[in-house]
């Protein structure tokens, strides 16, 4: 079943403006992206910094309006949602951010941070408390921390709190935007392990965004590679790793192995005329 469907989405930002307000130069943050995320099949999105991953995530979250194209969540076009349903969106989709030091409001106690998503919840107070304890336990905290403040926690601990907060509404899709990138390697492992446990337990599907192929591979059976605002290759993780077709994917894979990789494949420009073609079942490449 299709959970999230992104259809030919474009978003250009003007980086400099004329004094009359006309855009001079456009940055093609997202340039015609098609992709789908199926229920239960987490998708990893890989690409270098500045390739438009975060913009794509925010478009998926309905936080930015795309210039063209549509985003469907469970078959409903998110651009034309009636007011009441837009209210429900947060309970279907949530997001964990990159920087755990800035994603928790320093003035909120952990209790208030976790309570915040429940503002429109239909649960009673008791049920909310129950839910809060359950999630705290799920991310490995005791309830003693509820009255403490974010600055008392390390980066990894904060990220766990952020994950608990995102899961409070029991979303179907969790977007993790570089969620482990700012953590050191051992803590990354912990968080990734935790995420894989939570996936089973809460039946949530991940849209995992990272610049690190190794990290994505651990969590996602399906991987998409993004380059200069376009998806250049998309397919099941094993196939993509064993048989990368697009030069950029090859470079990424090599880079994950050795530093010399940069010289192996020359810089490849993505041309506008290219389209995603299905090479084998479920494996798409931009040609």
């Amino acid at each position, binding site marked *: 079943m299709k959970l999230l469907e992104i259809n030919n989405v474009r978003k250009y930002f003007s980086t400099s403006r004329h004094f009359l307000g006309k855009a001079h130069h456009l940055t093609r943050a997202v340039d015609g992206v098609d992709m789908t995320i199926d229920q239960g099949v987490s998708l990893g999105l890989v690409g270098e910094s500045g390739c438009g991953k975060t913009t794509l995530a925010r478009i998926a979250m309905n936080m930015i309006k795309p210039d063209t194209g549509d985003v469907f969540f469970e078959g409903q076009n998110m651009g034309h949602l009636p007011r009441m349903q837009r*209210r429900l969106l*947060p309970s279907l989709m949530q997001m964990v951010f990159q*920087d755990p030091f800035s994603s928790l*409001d320093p*003035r909120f106690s952990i209790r208030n941070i976790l309570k*915040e998503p429940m*503002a429109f919840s239909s649960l009673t107070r008791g049920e909310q408390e129950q839910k809060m304890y359950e999630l705290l336990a799920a991310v490995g905290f005791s309830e003693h921390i509820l009255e403490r403040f974010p600055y008392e926690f390390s980066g990894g601990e904060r990220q766990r709190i952020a994950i608990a*907060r995102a899961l409070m509404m029991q979303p179907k899709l969790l977007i993790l935007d570089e969620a482990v990138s700012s953590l050191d390697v051992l803590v990354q492992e912990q968080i990734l392990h935790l995420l894989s446990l939570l996936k089973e337990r809460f039946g949530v599907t991940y849209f995992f965004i990272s610049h690190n192929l190794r990290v994505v591979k651990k969590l996602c059976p399906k991987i998409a590679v993004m380059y200069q605002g376009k998806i250049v290759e998309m397919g099941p993780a094993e196939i993509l790793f064993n048989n990368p077709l697009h030069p950029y994917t090859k470079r990424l894979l090599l880079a994950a192995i050795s530093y010399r990789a940069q010289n192996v494949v020359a810089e490849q420009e993505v041309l506008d005329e290219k389209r995603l073609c299905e090479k084998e079942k479920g494996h798409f490449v931009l040609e």
Partner: protein
Amino acid sequence: MNKQGQHVSQFQASFKVFQRNRLAVACLSVLGLLYFLAIFADFFSPYSYDNEDRNYSYCPPMKVHMVNQDGSLSWPYVYGTSFVFDSFHKRIYTEDKTQKYTIRLFPKGDAYRLLGVIPWDRHFFGVETKGRLHLWGADSRGRDLLSRLLWGSRVSLSIGLIGVLISFVFGLFIGGISGYYGGWIDTLVMRLCEMFMMVPGFYLMLALRAAFPPNLNSLQIYLLVVVIFSFIGWASLARVIRGMAMTLKQREYVLAAKAMGLSDLRIIRMHILPHTMSYSIVAIMLSIPGYIMGESALSLLGLGIQDPYASWGNLLSEAMGIVQIRFAPWILLPGLFIFITVICFNVVGDALRDALDPWLKAEGQS
């Protein structure tokens, strides 16, 4: 965290720094005392603000005696006064040693309502109603200056506080919205702010006052002055808050709150404005003196609080002539009180800035 590993809140940490500044603590106590006296002005003042006796016009401060004429110690008392006219028809007051009025605690006097509700007629100190007590002298109509000072402090001290609160509510709200939404809303609001800031404050004040009819009652004038001040004061704060909101809205916890579906107003209220608090507290403290002086200036020119009601500026307006200053210098006392209050607010504001500084910096950086 402190040594015991307990959680130290921002407030506690800042309070410690503040406490170390002795001068500021002293100034804060002075302010506390002034506000306390203002709240219970009707009790602490020996007379009501409009209790006059023309026989005591420009009566100089009375001497308090503690030794009887025969040399024995006595409860503090004052003599009655009598006056003669000199060659310029000026009154020369002398003590009338035949009349002796003991200063008593809690004597009966003018009736009032304590805190606006409890009817009472006892005052903190005073003399029996036959005599009069003017510890700090009397004004042209023989009204007790000390009493009028205390009554006037109600207006002068509260106008600063209320005016500042109203303009800050507006400034925070408007600045928050402007910074958070950005775009054309921001442009519109900021150009509006600049229009307000462009006009010199004092003339704007005069113009606004002139736009309203002159024959208002005292409460109306009081409210009018408050509104005028708030009208002028919000713009500069809104500008600063707008700048802070623009940086704060890019924090990821604001994005997270958006992703949770919280409304914009709720995000501004919960995640943006609280982070401007340390700045706002300092700014409030430092801008109260301006309001107090503004009220004084309006009243001094006769556009603010009208006689017989008292405010510090209104009291000072009697001291505008050289004759009064030369022969009755005690009517300058309200000026001293304005001076003390303004200095105290500035010192406390500066100390608060120092105390909250680590937090101001931390919030500016992270």
